[in-house]
């Protein structure tokens, strides 16, 4: 069986950054397995700008951002295989992959980095009633058709969901000559970034209707109209509030789901809130030597954070391969919890002995909070209390933990992140 020190599943932004960081940590035999025909992942179809402000202090398009990393992968001569589908991962880190050229191959990996990204929630999962004609797309599929294949799905568009891809596609479809009639959002707030609402909807006079959902889809062969209605506090449509929009296209941008079918088949423990693996401070999953980063771990808002997180997974995997890792059994492990408006944390546990001097803990909130505080508790003691003018589910938040602070508390079991009024 062929073997590699590190096998990275996925050649999108997470996989690329993880590979480069593992190489910089001194690992020679690295292999990236990518199912698509080129490296870069979903960034290749994100031809709008706004990527890389944090990483490169400039605004890049998705392909440009990806290219910065692809260039480094090429320079570092990191091996990658395209059009290669990983079929299986075993708990003892045997990766089974398949391609046209090589058929089914098994690869023994010293460490595995999961970087498979996420997929969009389909219409069926939303239980939207009505017909099932042509003309209904998840926003990302439409984005691929328009930006990669060069075809326009339709001319009159309704969008359900105000996730970032939906917002971006509202602008793209408008620029391509289509009329976007309305963006309906089930929640009383948008799931996307504030800047995308301003730049993609407001700038083009596209109405955003919060607390609205699709209650009917008409058209037997092709979409002919979509009816939306306002919803009450239980997200149930309110009779009498229906508005019918004649249209030929319905785009759905109703959430992303980390693609963890391979992970869970291998026995990786998943967090039901994020649908991503439960990881420790080194982004290692419940299976030793299997790491996760990027949208397969939790859905990110900005790719810059994906790259940062993936670099960490790369370093951790390198340490694992070089067996520099602190023995977990002997370490002081603290559990991280999210309550009172905070929905989850990544990572879920911290081994105080193994952690670096500073640890970034990322999380999201469950609803909109204004003039609130992000608080960090060591057991019942409040350690951090940061004022935030606004906290929204569409944006990722973070707190930073200091190793020396944790070391001062040898009996510490639980760190809790809470959103507080003051």
């Amino acid at each position, binding site marked *: 069986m062929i073997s590699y020190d590190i096998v990275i599943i996925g050649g999108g932004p997470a996989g690329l950054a993880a590979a480069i960081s593992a190489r910089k940590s001194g690992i020679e035999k690295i292999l990236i397995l990518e199912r698509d025909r080129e490296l870069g992942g979903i960034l290749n179809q994100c031809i709008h700008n706004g990527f890389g402000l944090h990483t490169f202090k400039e605004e890049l398009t998705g392909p440009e951002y990806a290219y910065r990393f692809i260039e480094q992968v090429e320079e570092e001569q990191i091996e990658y295989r395209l059009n290669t589908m990983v079929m299986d991962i075993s708990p003892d880190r045997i990766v089974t992959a398949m391609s046209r050229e090589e058929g*089914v191959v098994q690869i023994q990996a010293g460490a595995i980095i999961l970087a498979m990204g996420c997929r969009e929630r389909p219409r069926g999962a939303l239980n939207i009633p009505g017909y099932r004609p042509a003309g209904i797309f*998840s926003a990302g599929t439409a984005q691929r058709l328009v930006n990669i294949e060069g075809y326009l799905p339709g001319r009159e568009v309704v969008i359900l969901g105000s996730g970032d891809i939906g917002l971006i596609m509202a602008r793209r479809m408008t620029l391509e000559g289509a009329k976007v009639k309305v963006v309906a959002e089930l929640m009383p707030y948008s799931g996307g970034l504030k800047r995308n609402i301003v730049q993609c909807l407001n700038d083009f006079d596209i109405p955003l209707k919060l607390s609205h959902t699709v*209650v009917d889809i008409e058209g037997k*062969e092709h979409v002919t109209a979509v009816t939306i209605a306002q919803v009450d506090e239980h997200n149930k449509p309110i009779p009498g509030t229906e508005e019918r929009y004649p249209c030929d296209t319905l785009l759905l941008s109703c959430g992303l789901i980390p693609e963890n079918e391979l992970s869970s088949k291998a026995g990786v423990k998943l967090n039901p809130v994020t649908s991503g693996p439960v990881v420790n401070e080194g982004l290692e999953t419940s299976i030793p030597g299997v790491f996760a980063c990027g949208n397969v771990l939790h859905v990110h808002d900005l790719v810059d954070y994906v790259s940062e997180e993936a670099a960490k997974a790369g370093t951790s995997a390198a340490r694992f391969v070089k067996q520099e890792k602190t023995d977990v059994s002997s370490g002081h492990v603290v559990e991280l919890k999210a309550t009172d408006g905070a929905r989850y944390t990544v990572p879920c546990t911290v081994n105080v002995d193994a952690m670096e001097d500073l640890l970034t803990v990322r999380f999201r909130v469950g609803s909109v909070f204004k003039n609130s505080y992000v608080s960090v508790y060591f057991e019942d003691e409040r350690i951090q209390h940061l004022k935030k003018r606004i906290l929204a589910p569409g944006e990722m938040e973070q707190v930073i933990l200091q190793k020396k602070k944790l070391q001062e508390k040898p009996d510490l079991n639980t760190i809790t992140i809470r959103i507080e009024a003051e």
Partner: protein
Amino acid sequence: MYDVIIIGAGVTGSAVARELSKYDANICVLEACEDVCEGTSKANSAIIHAGFDAKEGTLMAKMNVRGNQMMDQLAEDLDIPFKRNGALVVCTDREELEGLTTLYERGIANGVEGLRILTRDEALEMEPNLSDQVEGALYAPTSGIICPFILNIAMAENAFQNGVDFFFNTRVEDIRCDENGIYHLRTGNGEYQARYVVNAAGVYADELHNLVSSHKISITPRRGDYCLLDKDAGSHVSHTIFSQPTKKGKGVLVSPTVHGNLIVGPTAIDIEDKEGVNTTAEGISTLISKAGNTVKNLPMRKVITSFAGLRAHEDGHEFILGEVEDAPHFIDCAGIESPGLSSCPAIGEYIASLLKEKMGLEEKEHWNPKRKGILNPETLSIEERNALIQSEPAYGQIVCRCESISEGEILDAIRRPLGARSLDGVKRRVRAGMGRCQAGFCSPKVMELLHSELGLPLEAITKSGGNSHIVLERTKGADGGNL
């Protein structure tokens, strides 16, 4: 001029076509849609019923039990998946326990084998996720699960192999019988003539029947909404779980599918529109609430799609099979609602033997009952799979990630006789797009394959024929590069 024209390429029409193809006759099938399996056949519970439900002595009972018996051989001949997973009719009301005995006795009278009444404990042992309210159950080991698309497609392909012509996008608009007893069928695609006509037009069978007969029949489309759950949830139950029908009405079933998903449904709502396959919010919420009556902890968050199908309910609630009294040589297969899928092979056999008698048909010397299915590489060992990929590299390229479907399988689906011509055609043949992302990732790639195989422009590729195109036109400047 044909000896026999069969109207409709659903499971009934295709089963009749296959059985008739045994005989020396000139046969064709006229289908209104662009593919086989486009009506009632494509949206149902996908169950091969044991046969205890229909009233003793009815055609429904006879055809169901016979159809069930025929299914193993048929599945083997047609190389299609079929599993006898057994069914439980669950009683959750002590007052209604007697009803299980009634069903049991009816099943015995119908000739159903292996029926057994289970106590609460026996039922729970067999199926731990049954509702805590379970009082007893009727166990029917011969009940099975099948893929209705593949059954339909395979029967049609086999009929085609044996010489039956198929014409798609050919809706019969009028039927007239001339003085020589020849039927003239006017379609959107010109006129077809035949000495015999088999009416297997599903929800439209009444309209065609009423064109030739003064004894009118009336078919009401009875809509059933369904939810399909992710394969993650596919082992929540292993048997098909029915709710015992009571005075309070019929419940919904919960069953694994032969491909490993979980299906929940159907509702039963009589409508007027014969194309009214839209789901409704009430329908779906009824399903979700009723499903919990027999099975607990159903993971309804795992729903990947919901859909609705129409049962062709005739007022008499009985299959109408045979020659129409005042229209000689016009054979009805009407009112084929549940258990129509289970009964279709028996209906095919019955109608074919009836026509054999009437027409004096001779058996063909070389009739081939076997059809080779689309190769599923997942059934191969790694060595076999590698040998396949070496000779046919397209089998090494996964197109549908969720269901792990390779380009090779999709090309086979398009290239084979009566091959796929649309995204749904591909989906029903090889399941590309049937998984948890519901074609989000694979549809652009399947479109490309259809485009290159069929030589159609991308704008002409459809979801399911007609006006269901996926893309409208090229984007501005997409041809750039040719400056």
